[in-house]
């Protein structure tokens, strides 16, 4: 009994001595701010900042090599907190989210062959470029889902990768990893996107997919802000210029253009404020407002696409919109 007690205590003593010595001997000097920075970071090691881990990013921030707003996952709050730790001012940009620029699921698009093999887009493209007939088609085998550190990707039943904008932090990993290169980062408020990346001729696209861009250029003509231009056979949306009016959406014959988070709500005219000046009916690009001069104007149901162009122009502030609570954020940025 005593021997055992003695032995164990002795052992403990020796071990603790060793530990203590090691702690002294091999101690590494760390800038205390590194730990502070690390505490503020989300700690998911997503790599969106360009560093392999949060602690490496933290070190870079302290050394002044990385900007305080470098953490995409953490967003605004983290940037502000980091700026406080570092005693600098943070420049905050609008949050961005990833969008998969393909709408051609298994139903809408054709395949070249039946694929059997590893469920990973990057491995699948090694077999004749993947089974989709369209070389720009989402394969839906979920490489983006695998790499997403925030669980923000779901593969739809139709075999398309869809990004949950609520969860997406815009870290951009999926953009880099997608073997088809069809994921793009866009400012969260710019919720209109042209969901096709195919540069093939319209006739080719038609053969392969029901919802691909066929280069009809309708959207280019429709856009009141010149935000859409043609890049070869593909309509491309310039998000800087896009005012999110949504006018292009109903005009696209292949329904390639889509707004995230549902359709745009129509405007309403408040009868008590309307003076009947008629400006709104004049500028409405879809002729959705009618009314006689000096009379209260009304919005034609089913016509209004919710572009909101009239709201700013109404001198009486008589045009408004019934705002669903969850899209208030987006509206604010419009």
């Amino acid at each position: 009994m005593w021997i055992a007690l003695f032995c164990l205590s002795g052992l403990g003593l020796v071990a603790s001595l060793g530990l203590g010595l090691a702690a002294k001997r091999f101690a590494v000097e760390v800038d205390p701010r590194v730990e502070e920075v690390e505490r503020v970071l989300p700690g998911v090691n997503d790599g969106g900042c360009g560093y392999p881990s949060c602690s490496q990013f933290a070190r870079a921030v302290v050394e002044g090599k990385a900007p305080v707003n470098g953490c995409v996952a953490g967003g605004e709050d983290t940037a502000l907190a980091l700026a406080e730790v570092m005693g600098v001012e943070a420049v905050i940009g609008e949050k961005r989210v990833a969008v998969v620029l393909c709408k051609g699921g298994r139903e809408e698009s054709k395949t070249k062959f039946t694929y059997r093999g590893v469920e990973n887009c990057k491995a699948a493209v090694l077999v004749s470029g993947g089974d989709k007939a369209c070389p720009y088609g989402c394969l839906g085998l979920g490489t983006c889902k695998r790499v997403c550190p925030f669980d923000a990707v779901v593969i739809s039943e139709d075999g398309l990768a869809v990004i949950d904008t609520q969860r997406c932090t815009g870290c951009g990993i999926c953009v880099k990893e997608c073997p088809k290169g069809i994921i793009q980062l866009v400012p969260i408020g710019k919720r209109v996107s042209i969901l096709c990346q195919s540069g093939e001729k319209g006739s080719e696209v038609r053969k392969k997919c029901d919802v691909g861009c066929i280069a009809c250029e309708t959207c280019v003509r429709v856009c009141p802000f010149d935000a859409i231009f043609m890049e070869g056979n593909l309509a491309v949306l310039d998000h800087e210029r896009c005012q999110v009016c949504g006018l292009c959406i109903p005009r696209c014959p292949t329904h390639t253009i889509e707004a995230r988070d549902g359709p745009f709500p129509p405007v309403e005219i408040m009868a008590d404020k309307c003076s009947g000046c008629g400006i709104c009916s004049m500028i409405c690009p879809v002729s959705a407002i009618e009314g006689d001069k000096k009379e209260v104007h009304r919005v034609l149901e089913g016509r209004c696409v919710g572009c909101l162009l009239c709201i700013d122009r109404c001198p009486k502030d008589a045009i408004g919109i019934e705002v669903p609570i969850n899209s208030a954020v987006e509206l604010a940025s419009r």
Partner: protein
Amino acid sequence: MKRLYLFQGGIHPSEQKFSQNSPIEELKAPDRVVVPLSQHIGAPCQATVAPGDRVRKGDRVGQATGFVSVNVHASISGMIRGVGLFPHPLGRPLPAVEIESDGEDAWTDNLKPHEDYMDLPPEALTEIIRDMGIVGMGGAAFPTHVKLSPPKEKPIDTLIINGAECEPYLTADHRLMLEEAENIIEGARIAMRILGVDRGVIAIESNKPDAIDKMKGLIEDIPELEVLALKVRYPQGAEKQLIKTILNREVPFSGGLPMDVGAIVQNVGTLSAIYKAVRFAAPLIERITTVTGSGVRQPKNLRVRIGTPTKALIEACGGFSSEVGKVIMGGPMMGVSQYSLEVPVVKGTSGIVVQPFSEVEEGSAQPCIRCGSCVRACPARLMPTVLGVFAQLDMFEEAQRYDVMDCIECGCCNYVCPAKIPLVQLLRYAKAEILTRRKAA
């Protein structure tokens, strides 16, 4: 009997050599061919013709663009219909020249035959081989003139003439050895002259006793050449395994070449093509392709023009025997399955294997039970299951440390795996990822 060394690993799948007794048949020149500008490993050719041009058989239509590159030639006479992207056996559209036949099938008159070819200096021979577009015809399609020009500091002592044909189903080389043995031997002598070696080993798997006898009979008076009968074991015909078996030398890891261990391996088909190129100035515009598998009515060995669409070959063999499942270009172990029957025969197309729908296995992988079969079967002495796990978890650095880059993609691991894990695809994925990362860095 000379002692043979064995390579470790390997498998012995059912041979299925349906067409080994069918003599080579000439497939008549098609009405239209699509001659890809990239039929070899290395830089693709530059097209030298434009739509509307008239060409004759043997005219150059693509010019080599660098040392590791060879010319391509018109395989029929007629008019150039298009130069652009066409389906390619690699699975994606690649630049090619489309020729429509004028029905004459006339040869070009630029041919310069050499009767006294053995008197030509080695450099001139190499030049001819390059001009005539000769590439390795065993499947990999590596430009032959490059292989035949080892640097001075790498002395070569042995030429290995590869007639192993270890892939199941394929019999093109076998038939060639029976029907064009003389050409192969002359080709071997030319290659040996270029390399300055005095030892040539004709290596044939022992499941082709008639070819072994034929070759033995022909080399009796040629002391530099010998015939070796090899044990039937896939991948016996892979360069590195062949050198190991015959010379007991291992080609160094990560990017080592046979020339590093003093050996050059040439496929029998390549040697026959070398002979024809040097003797008759005949460019490589045709090859022997085995069309086989239980999915075609009559398996055959066909002499086909480069650029002939797959469809024509299958029709020549009586069409599909039942509902088609897979059409594989190359052998069943390393070949590439195709999605279009428009894909043309290229210089490296050793065979077309058709599997009926009912024969294609379901690809449902089960978990690895660590049976170790893949480790025992791997001729590169890797641990495929470990590499597969690394690939699945995107652990590419670890995969690299476990030498994934030395995988020769022979498919042995995948063949033996009881859990049906697509190991080759996983390893190819890891290799591709490592290469892209290297490029990015």
